[in-house]
C-alpha cells in the first residue's frame, strides 16, 4: 500500500516538473499554425525552428518572420558560457576562501556572514536601475567584465553559505594534523580541505552555474549587442506578427544542454555533496 502511494507521488511530481519540458519539446517541433493548438504531439512536425536558430532568415513552416536577429545563436551561446562560466569560477574560488575564513577563523564575526545574506534579500529589480547608471559611468555596459563582475558578486553570497556548510563538516583536526606534519596552511587547503570537500564544491558550483546561466534581468539591462546571453536572446524572437514560440522553445531546449551536461559530468560528486557527513 505504502509502496503504491510512494510510486503515485513520484508519478505526480514527475508530471508536475516534466510537463512544461514536454510542452517545450512539442512546441519546438511545431509550425506557426500549431503554436496555439492544445495538441502535445505535433500534427506536422518540422525542424525549421532549430534551423532558424542558425539561419535567422529561414522560413518556419513556410512563413517568414522578420525579427531584429541577424546572426546565428553561436555568439549568445559563447557569451553565456563566458559570463556564466567565469562568473561561477570566480564565485566558487572567492566564495571558498571566504567560507574557509568564516568557518575556520571566524573572519568578520557573525555580522559579516549574515550581512552577505542580507544583500540577497533585496530583489534584483530594486538595484538594477542604479547599477545601470553606475555601469554606464565606468563604461561596463555591454562588456564581459561587467557581466562577469555582476554574476560573481550576486552569486558569491550563495557560494559562501553553501561552502561554509561543507567546510564546517570537516573536523579541524584533519587540518591541524597536516599542519603538524609540516604542511603550510596553503598546502593543507590544497591537499586536505579541497579533496575532502570536492563533492560540496561541485554541488555548489553546479547550483551557481545554473543561477548564472538562467539569469535574465541583469543580462537584459547590461547587454546591448555584444554580450547578449541566451536568456536575453530567447526574448528577442519576436516578430511583427507576434512571438515566435516554436523558435523560443527550441532555443530553450538547446540552452538546457550545458547545465544538463555539467550535472551529468559531476553526478558522482553531487551524490557525495548532497549526502555529506555520511561519507566520512
Amino acid at each position, binding site marked *: 500500500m505504502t509502496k503504491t502511494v510512494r510510486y503515485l507521488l513520484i508519478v505526480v511530481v514527475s508530471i508536475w516538473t516534466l510537463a512544461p519540458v514536454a510542452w517545450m519539446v512539442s512546441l519546438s517541433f511545431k509550425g506557426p499554425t500549431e503554436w496555439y493548438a492544445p495538441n502535445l504531439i505535433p500534427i506536422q512536425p518540422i525542424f525549421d525552428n532549430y534551423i532558424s536558430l542558425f539561419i535567422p532568415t529561414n522560413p518556419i513552416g513556410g512563413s517568414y518572420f522578420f525579427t531584429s536577429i541577424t546572426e546565428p545563436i553561436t555568439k549568445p551561446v559563447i557569451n553565456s558560457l563566458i559570463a556564466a562560466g567565469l562568473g561561477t569560477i570566480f564565485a566558487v574560488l572567492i566564495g571558498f576562501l571566504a567560507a574557509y575564513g568564516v568557518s575556520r577563523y571566524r573572519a568578520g564575526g557573525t555580522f559579516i556572514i549574515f550581512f552577505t545574506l542580507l544583500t540577497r534579500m533585496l530583489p534584483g529589480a530594486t538595484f538594477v536601475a542604479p547599477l545601470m547608471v553606475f555601469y554606464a559611468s565606468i563604461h561596463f555596459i555591454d562588456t564581459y567584465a561587467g557581466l562577469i563582475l555582476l554574476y560573481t558578486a550576486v552569486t558569491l553570497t550563495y557560494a559562501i553559505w553553501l561552502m561554509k556548510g561543507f567546510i564546517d563538516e570537516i573536523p579541524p583536526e584533519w587540518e591541524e594534523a597536516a599542519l*603538524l*606534519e609540516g604542511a603550510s596552511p596553503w598546502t593543507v587547503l590544497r591537499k586536505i580541505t579541497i579533496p575532502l570537500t570536492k563533492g560540496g564544491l561541485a554541488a555548489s558550483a553546479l547550483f551557481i552555474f545554473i543561477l548564472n546561466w538562467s539569469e535574465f534581468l541583469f543580462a537584459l539591462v547590461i547587454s546591448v549587442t555584444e554580450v547578449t546571453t541566451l536568456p536575453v536572446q530567447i526574448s528577442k524572437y519576436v516578430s511583427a506578427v507576434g512571438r515566435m514560440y516554436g523558435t523560443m522553445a527550441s532555443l530553450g531546449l538547446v540552452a538546457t544542454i550545458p547545465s544538463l551536461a555539467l550535472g551529468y559530468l559531476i553526478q558522482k560528486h553531487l551524490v557525495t555533496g548532497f549526502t555529506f557527513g555520511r561519507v566520512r
Partner: protein
Amino acid sequence: MPKLVVKNLRKLFGTFEAVKDVGFQVEEKETLCLLGPSGCGKTTTLRIIAGLEVPTSGQVFVDGVLVNDVPPQKRQIGLVFQDYAIFPHLSVFENIAYGLRVRKMPEAQLRTKVHDTASLIGVDNILDVPGRKLGLSEMQRVAIGRSIVLDPKLLLLDEPLSNIDAKARERMRAELGKLQKEIGIATVYVTHDQLEAMTLADRIAVMRNGLIEQIGTTSEIYDNPRTLFVGNFIGSPSMNLIDCELVYSEERAILKSGDFALDVTEFAETLRAKSKGRELVLGVRPEDVSVHVRKTDEEAMECEVQLVEPIGARSIYHLKIGRLAVLAKGYAMPEVDVGSKLWTTFNKHKLHVFDKKTEEAIV
C-alpha cells in the same frame, strides 16, 4: 637538558581563563601525563605546546629553544588527536608518508622510512587500506606512526583512548604502553582517566581549573596527595572523605564527626602546627580501611554492611559507621552480607588530613 619546558602558561578565551598558570618540564624519554577532569585546561595546554593555540602569556621551550613564535608546521612536534584525524581520502601508506611528502623526501628513502615505521607500529599489512576504512585500533597505530615517522622532538597525545569502549581500551592501553617503550620519545599525554595516567606515565601532573595541583610520580601522587582534590580524584574507588573537627579531651587529640571519633594523638603536633582552622577533612583510601568479623583491636569501630560489591578476590564494602558512610576494600569474606555487623579500623599510617578551607594536605 629537558626536552620540553613550559613556563607560566596562561590562556584566555574571551573572559574565560582556560589555563591560569601552568609550568612543568619533560625530560628525555619521559612520559608526563596531564590528568584532570574535562575543562581543567589540559587539552588547551597541549594545543599551546603544539602551536595550535597562541598563549595569552607564558613560554614554551622545546630542546631549550623558545618556540612561542614558531608556527606549528615548523615545531617538529607530533600530535595524536583524540579521534586520530586519519586523512580519510588517503591510504595508510600515504597517511604515514604525508609529512615526508610535504618535506619532499626522495621516493626511495620515503618508502624505506614508511615501511620501517609501519612495521614498528604493526600496520605493514594494511598499507593500501584507505583511511576511512580503518578500525579504531588501526587508526590509533597509524596516527602514532604518522607522528613518529618525522622523528619529532616531542610526542603529544590528546586523550587517545577516550573514544574506545572499555574492553578494547584495556588492550589498546597496553599496546600503547608497549609502543611508547619501543619509540622512546619524550611524551606529553593528556587524559581524564587516572588508570591510563598511572599505567602509562612516568610522572603525572594533576590539573584542575587551569592550574597544576600536584606534579610527581604515580606513587607520590597516590600516597601523598597535596590537596583534597588530588586525593579525591586519584584512586578507584575514590578516597573516603570525612568532614570533621579537631577536639582535645584528656590530653588526647580526636577527630570528631557526629558520633564518629578517631584518636589522632600521634599527629597532634603536626595538626596543631599546620592547621589554620578547626574544620578538617579526614581522608582514608578504601584499601586502608580494614574490616573484621570480630573486634580485634581496641580502637575498632562497629559498623553495618550496606552493600557488598565483589570484584574477584577482593570486595568493596559499603559500610555505615553510625551515620557515616565509608567504603572499604578488602579480601572477600563469603559470610559477610548486607546487614552484617562488622568491626573496622583505619590504617593510621595512611591517613590524610586536609584543611577544609584551603584544601591543602596537613598530614
